[in-house]
């Protein structure tokens, strides 16, 4: 069924053309415009000069400040991805396995946060972690601390809020990735002497890799392009590529520079995608 016959090619064409058209209109065209924009010259008062120059790229690449920012962004993406995976996996696994009557409700609960605007959820975190927040009040009341801890307006807050905001996406991806999870394989491993821990690492985990990879990619991408949460929780002290692009695009109004940064970000993420696809192909081969 996977020969490269003519009918196969027609099938492939039929299957992909609608997608290609949709993507062309809603992505490729804008992207090309963007590329053109990145070669214009913008000045700091927001005026744009139509020309063809690599100034913006040069400005970005020649400034170590931006390189640090790229680094910070990458670390944020990886950190949030790993943490999200760690806290989401047990929930997903539980949901796949449970025979509980409340399974449907539990799944709904895991996804429900998504229906609450991430802006609102971030506010929830502000209320929870702020100086007058629930956590600080509780800690003060128990006498464990004598002044409020700085839980937000710093990186810590950004990580906590982002991890929570990304969890439902990760859970959804993992749930789908487990597919029709076959408990028989777990049984087989156990009958061969694998304890729960090793059954997990040797059987469940590798078999859930498609879901893990998908979830990881999803979260990584959403994280590095997230700007609302770092904005709201970062206290103006943390800078990532996304917030920087946002600033350039909406505050400084230097669109050419914003566009150039976007393309640099794109190049960076192309690397991630390539790695992802390579990993995926390894799994697919199985």
């Amino acid at each position, binding site marked *: 069924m996977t020969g490269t016959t003519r009918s196969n090619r027609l099938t492939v064409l039929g299957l992909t053309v609608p997608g290609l058209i949709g993507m062309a209109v809603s992505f490729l065209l804008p992207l090309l415009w963007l590329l053109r924009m990145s070669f214009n010259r913008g000045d700091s008062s*927001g005026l744009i000069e139509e020309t063809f120059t690599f100034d913006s790229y040069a400005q970005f690449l020649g400034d170590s400040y931006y390189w640090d920012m790229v680094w910070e962004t990458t670390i944020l993406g990886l950190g949030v991805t790993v943490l999200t995976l760690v806290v989401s996996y047990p929930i997903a696994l539980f949901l796949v396995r449970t025979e509980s009557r409340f399974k449907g409700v539990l799944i709904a609960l895991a996804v429900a946060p998504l229906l609450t605007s991430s802006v609102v959820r971030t506010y929830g975190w502000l209320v929870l972690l702020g100086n007058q927040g629930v956590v600080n009040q509780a800690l003060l009341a128990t006498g464990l601390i004598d002044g409020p801890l700085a839980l937000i307006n710093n990186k810590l807050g950004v990580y906590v809020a982002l991890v929570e905001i990304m969890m439902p996406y990760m859970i959804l991806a993992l749930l789908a990735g487990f597919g029709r999870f076959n408990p028989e394989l777990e049984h087989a491993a156990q009958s061969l002497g694998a304890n729960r821990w090793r059954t997990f690492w040797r059987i469940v985990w590798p078999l859930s890799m498609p879901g893990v990879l998908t979830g990881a990619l999803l979260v990584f991408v959403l994280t590095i392009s997230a700007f609302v949460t770092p904005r709201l929780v970062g206290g*103006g002290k943390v800078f990532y590529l996304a917030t920087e692009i946002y600033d350039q695009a909406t505050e400084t109004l230097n669109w050419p520079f914003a566009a150039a940064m976007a393309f640099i970000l794109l190049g960076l993420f192309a690397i991630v995608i390539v790695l992802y696809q390579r990993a995926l192909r390894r799994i697919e081969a199985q």
Partner: protein
Amino acid sequence: GCGNGTATNANDSADSGTITVKGYSGVFEDNFQKAVIEPFKKKYPKIQVKYVGSANSAENLASLRAARNTPDTDVSIMDISTSGTANKSQLFAALDPAKVPNMADIDPRGKVEGNFGPALTFDSLVLIYNDSVSPAPTKWESLWDPKYKGKVVVPAQPDIQGTALMLVENQKGGGDYTKSVDAGVARLKQLAPNVQTWDPQPDQYTLVQSNTAALAIGWNARAQYYQDQSQGKMKAAIPDEDTIFQINTINLVKDSPSPAAAQTFLNYALSPEAQASFTDTMFYAPTNTKAKPSDEALARTSLDPKKSAKILDVDWSQVAANRDAWTQLWRRQILAG
């Protein structure tokens, strides 16, 4: 498509038509609706006014710029530094003095060269504080007080509140912002340990009101408004030293779908009655010299005759030109610490 997107609009005349006004959202929108748009609608029942909120001036400009070939907005309200850029990029049209006679009565500080959109409101930078703070602060210096470590809020550059504070401090330190802001930056560097957040969320008025922060800088009009709203939990203090004006201009969008009706509206917004009414509701100082707001409202504005002498003179186009450079200075020298 957008209903009123064509450049020549048969329905447009000085007393009928549909216009779209783009300006700040939130309390500004609420009060502007109440104090200006509603009375206007009563006066010109055949003109439909649609108000579209945008988060800030830059966003407003961005959307104007994107839609420059097919504008769907007629009137735009934005900060003067941003409107300067818009004027330069030919996004706004010059007003017809005949159609906007009230332009003539605008305070000189609010007039813009070439008959482009003039000032709609005057505002100034003030201190705001939680009512648990005593004694009540009267000078910018209080922000540096070590007892407020981690309890001060300053919206950072490119927000013009941060810019304004820097300019004030720069001036105090003997600097000339047209040449260098190093003195101001040095002062703010010292302030950094005290600052809880440079990017207050939801905003500094709320943080101070809930006592999450003790002290902050803010705009007078809003501060006064929230002081009333919070029953005094948050207070505004117009400092008895130099401060800076914030000016919002009202502009006619180039190729606006309904330029005639739009200018009728502009003229009304600049009229003494509308200006007085807006001052009474939200404490923006009127720009029309003939406006007669109530005395107690006027006393709480930056135009209070006792204070206006201390307004620093700022060339906003200079500020706009330096915006990016200054932002980088803040990033690398103040915020990173």
